């Protein structure tokens, strides 16, 4: 049998060099064909022409013949046209909704991470549950409540006001939807960072004479800055691409976001596919900083886990 062992060992050494890349290969090829190539297709469509007969965008695969006129139109629209107002509105919605998420989410994450002693699992389940309730179902629930004869209008009437058309294009309703939809995604990373924090530092602060308020402001809050940042980035990324929340809760052009514009260019008016592709790229470039921050964060965590 010794020959067998020897053979196995030489085989093992010989295989090491390529065996692991070979394991990774199917997944990497898949991602190359269905993640990288599609991105190239977006650029090719954005840089392509319009078929004059079928009014369909024709992609231009050769970089030497790229025609950036779609980008020209989209950028001109953003700086001084209708698109600019939509972009500004998107930024305001996302900023206000993120701020509200921090204000509501911080006390909740803090309470569950620090103050809960009994039944912590139950509280955590409550925080986790919205993750696995379909986003569209959560919006549908609000459509029911905010409808003409919904519970919100009944409450409003009961306290003596006139019922409102809540779903007719109100900024505050769309922002409520965004906060409702994405707040759970903010709370969780923050909870994790508060939960991981070294309790001895807090004890030291208290031993050195800090009041509870001081120890919160000067120890806990600075130490949870990373968690807040991670949570905000995590919710801002999908919010910038959201189109279903404004569509379901308002549907009016008054509350249109960048995502709605892309959805319309791509799914509804096929002749504007080129503009849709260009706008998608502009959106990606605009939020690239957020994506990169989040990516580096994941890589850091991975590295720590590996060591």
């Amino acid at each position, binding site marked *: 049998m010794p020959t067998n062992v020897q053979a196995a060992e030489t085989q093992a050494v010989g295989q090491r060099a390529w065996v692991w890349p070979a394991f990774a290969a*199917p997944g990497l090829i*898949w991602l190359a064909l269905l993640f990288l190539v599609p991105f190239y297709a977006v650029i090719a*469509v954005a840089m392509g022409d319009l078929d004059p007969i079928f009014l369909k965008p024709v992609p231009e695969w050769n970089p030497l013949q790229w025609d950036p006129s779609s980008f020209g139109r989209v950028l001109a629209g953003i700086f001084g046209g209708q698109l600019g107002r939509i972009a500004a509105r998107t930024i305001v919605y996302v900023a206000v909704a993120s701020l509200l998420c921090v204000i509501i989410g911080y006390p909740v994450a803090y309470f569950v991470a620090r103050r809960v002693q009994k039944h912590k699992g139950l509280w955590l389940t409550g925080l986790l549950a919205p993750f696995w309730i379909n986003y569209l179902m959560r919006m549908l629930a609000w459509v029911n409540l905010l409808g003409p004869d919904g519970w919100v209008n009944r409450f409003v009437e009961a306290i003596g006001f006139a019922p409102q058309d809540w779903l007719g294009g109100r900024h505050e309703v769309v922002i409520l939807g965004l906060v409702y939809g994405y707040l759970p995604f903010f709370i969780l990373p923050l909870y994790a960072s508060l939960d991981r924090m070294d309790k001895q530092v807090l004890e030291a602060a208290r031993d050195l004479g800090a009041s509870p308020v001081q120890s919160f402001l000067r120890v806990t809050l600075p130490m949870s800055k990373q968690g807040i940042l991670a949570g905000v980035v995590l919710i801002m990324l999908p919010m910038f691409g959201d189109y279903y929340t404004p569509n379901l809760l308002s549907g009016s052009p008054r509350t249109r976001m960048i995502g709605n514009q892309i959805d319309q260019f791509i799914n509804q008016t096929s002749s504007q596919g080129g503009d849709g592709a260009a706008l998608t790229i502009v959106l990606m470039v605009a939020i690239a900083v957020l994506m990169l921050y989040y990516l580096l964060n994941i890589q850091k965590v991975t590295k720590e*886990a590996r060591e």
Partner: protein
Amino acid sequence: MKAWFANPWGKPRWLRVITIAYLVWSLLPVLIAVQFSFNAGRSRSTWQGFSLRWYLDDPASVARDDSLILALQQSLRLAALTMLVATPIGVALAIGLARWRGRGARPAGFLMLVPLVTPEIVMGVALFLVFANLYDFVPFGTGTQLLGHVTFAISFVVIIVRGRLFAIGRDYEEAAMDLGASPWESLRRVLLPLLAPAIFSSFAIVFAISIDDFVISQFLAGGASSITIPVRLYSGARVAPPPSLNALASLLLLATLSAVTIAALILRKFGRQEGSGDSAAAALTRIEI
């Protein structure tokens, strides 16, 4: 309780009040939506008694309205297929990336992470345009939806599995090879059994994220037969839908929660042994924390 009435705004009380208010606000609307799926009447806001009418009997119920049946079938089929395709590819990718130390390893790891941080609309547009213009031999429908779902699911599998891989380390495999096992044998008889809980929970998580997806399913749908439940909820929500739409949403909720519960139970049973709880928690919350 007495102390609370005496001074409701005393030290940590207000934190508890805010948290309870938040939980009620975040869960109650959904519970009301589920409740009205059992309404005996047509209203989604006036309770007229309990019945299964919107699940079974009414011509517009989930069991009898063709568009709702199709959506239910399509969602289940797509989630099952995605689970079966994405999990093996993701497991192999996780093993490969964790062990590979060559020059290509870093960019490969990077490529695996990018889908996790890409907004869904960007991925939806990209996949739509590539299937419309380059891969036009795949007609829009279940095929394109499956390819799209697997693309975003692979990264989740890698995240779940590699957490466990890091925890296991390489000692067991090397011991097996020192004892004469070929690399293939050590993989099959040592590593894969150790990875089993992570693999099974990956199946469940992928099922859940696939059945839950809306954006990719919508961009890659092709006609009535490939409408999934979330797409159906989206198109039906604004046009005064009957409670059967609530019933369909409740069934979706049931499917997702069952899958996640299974994943959580598996991870709870096995996860503690090797300390991979962190990545399991991250997987359950769909994020890397």
